[in-house]
């Protein structure tokens, strides 16, 4: 990687403090991170080390208490609520441990969801969502609802949904936490393929050392809201 190219994701002294009652909890305490475009980075750390907080901030779901976040040249940390919505819609895709699909909607409709908020026409949405489901190998399950799908299938739907608006960055918060080891490997393999073939930048929170070492380019370890070890991100 050339050092002259600015990283896709960059945080400076990123902090997030929660106040619960009288107690201040420092979930993130000054994280400096730079992830170059096209990298597949794993974030590890013990429970409560700030991994999810970091991902929520990068995904525009939460706003920092201090510090800055830059994604693709945009200063995410100073965006308004509406700008953040637009950023979530098109700048970043997220997948979760618990999939977070809408149970009453079919796989196809779940994938369509971001396209609805982007204001696309119905026919165009359908076409794009079908393509994405085909891409993750679920074209035959398009009209099934999440409760009728296996965990691995649900996570594939979630991946397709995260990619709907063509983001350059994909955030995965313990995507294999609810899956067996074989399915876990399939999902992380799918992410790696997207990273390899489409140049998608991926930041994945994971505990699974084997998968991380097999697929990820680099790793960031957090402890008590601070980066204690990092390598291969830039």
């Amino acid at each position: 990687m050339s050092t002259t190219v600015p990283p896709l994701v960059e945080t400076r002294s990123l902090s997030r403090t929660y106040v619960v009652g009288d107690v201040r909890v420092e979930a993130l305490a000054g994280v400096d991170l730079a992830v170059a475009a096209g990298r597949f980075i794993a974030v590890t750390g013990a429970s409560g080390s700030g991994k999810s907080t970091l991902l929520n901030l990068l995904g525009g779901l939460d706003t920092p208490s201090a510090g800055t976040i830059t994604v693709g040249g945009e200063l995410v940390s100073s965006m308004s609520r509406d700008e953040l919505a637009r950023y979530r819609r098109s700048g970043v895709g997220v997948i979760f441990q618990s999939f977070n699909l809408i149970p009453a909607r079919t796989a196809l409709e779940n994938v369509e969801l971001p396209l609805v908020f982007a204001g696309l026409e119905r026919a165009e949405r359908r076409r794009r969502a079908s393509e994405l489901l085909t891409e993750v190998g679920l074209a035959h399950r398009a009209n099934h609802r999440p409760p009728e799908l296996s965990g691995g299938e649900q996570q594939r739907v979630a991946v397709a949904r995260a990619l709907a608006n063509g983001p350059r960055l994909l955030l995965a918060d313990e995507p294999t936490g609810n899956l067996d080891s074989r399915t876990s490997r399939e999902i992380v393999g799918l992410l790696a393929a997207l990273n390899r073939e489409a140049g998608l930048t991926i930041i994945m929170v994971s505990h699974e050392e084997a998968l991380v070492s097999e697929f990820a380019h680099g790793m960031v370890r957090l402890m008590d809201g601070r980066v204690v070890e990092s390598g291969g991100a830039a």
Partner: protein
Amino acid sequence: MRFADAVGFAMVSLRKRRLRTFLTAAGVTIGIGALVSMISFGKGIQKNVSESFRASDLFNSLMVMPGGPEGPSGDPDEGRPVKATVGPKDAVLDDAAVAAISRLPGVRAAYPDISFPAMVRYDGEEEFRLIQVVPAAVASSKAMAIKWGRPYSSDEETGVIVSRSFLRRMGTRDPAAAVGKTLTVMSVTLDLGQLLSSGLGGLLSGKGLPVATESYDFPVLGVTEMSPFGGGPNPMQSDVLIAPGPAGRIKRLPISSVWDLFRMQKGRLGYSAVTVKLGSIGDLETVGTRVREMGFATFALADQFAEITRGFYFMNMVLAAVGMIAIVVAALGIVNTMVMSILERYREIGVMKAVGASDGDIRRIFFFESGAIGLAGGTAGCLLGWATSLLINKVVNLYLAGQGVPHISYFAFPAWIFLGAVGFSLLVSLVSGIYPARRAARVDPVVALRHD
């Protein structure tokens, strides 16, 4: 997010919670139904009264009363907007005055308001009634609404006109059969000859006043329809009417009312009231002014109608307020349902935000949901209110038909009631949706998506 998609999302979520949507909309339905039937009842009554006023020709008449020192202040009905005289205070409302009034331009007829009490016998039944003297010109006008038979053709024709309600009290069910039958008027007179011959001694000896009863037979010429409002705005307060000619031949105490008695004690003769029929309502102002300049007080129902209209406005307000209570309850139902919906869909809202829904998108979805409830409830409420009103109208008319009251519609449904009700329902539901929609928009996706 496209408008159609936001509507679609709202519909999907309403359909998913069918029972609750139905129950909430049912609350709105009942509220709007109550409001619609209340307002249509108010409007119906107003319409009926206005129409019967108009039909009765009453707006074209003017009541003239003496404008003396006391004026008509003895009138117990103080609410009457009687316009006081602006002319001489001692003008007497006698035949000359009546003649002068009838010569005024715009006056069709002027006749004294004369009535006298008498015992009336019809078909074996007897009752004490006030008999009103009405000229033929008025009896044959549309003010009278004679439904069976005919009015007397001249002021000299012997015969009476009775009302249907009078016949009912006398036990006659069929008004058509009454035409041509005989009605007997028995007047009571003081036998002056006997009073003089027996002197005071006779009085004191316990024989009482020497009273003579005279009977006069009249054929029933016509029967007027009973007013649906219990006599209501009928110009004739009495329900036995007679022409001036035969009335003059009935011997009676020369007292036609308490007013005359009062007046006579002061040594002034004159009528207590004179009815003036006008060619058109447009003449009311000029004729009224001229009459007041002559020294008399006037009373016109048309003047009072403005007051009646104000009364109806007030009545409609009260009815609407009753309906509003139901609407407020329904609105709280909407708020409750929508807030519940937020709690249930907390995670779903979080998901929508995570994939790019803006605060405005979420707000719109919830707003449309409550709007749809209002629209559906309002439309159904119109139907409910309409159906209920028809049913009540049917039952009431069925009951009143047994009392001889003709069929009338107690409810009126101008188009604006329905349009207004649906619009109002939509407005109420949107207002009810403001708080839930804002609250939904403020859902924090991090909290909503936290692993559970």
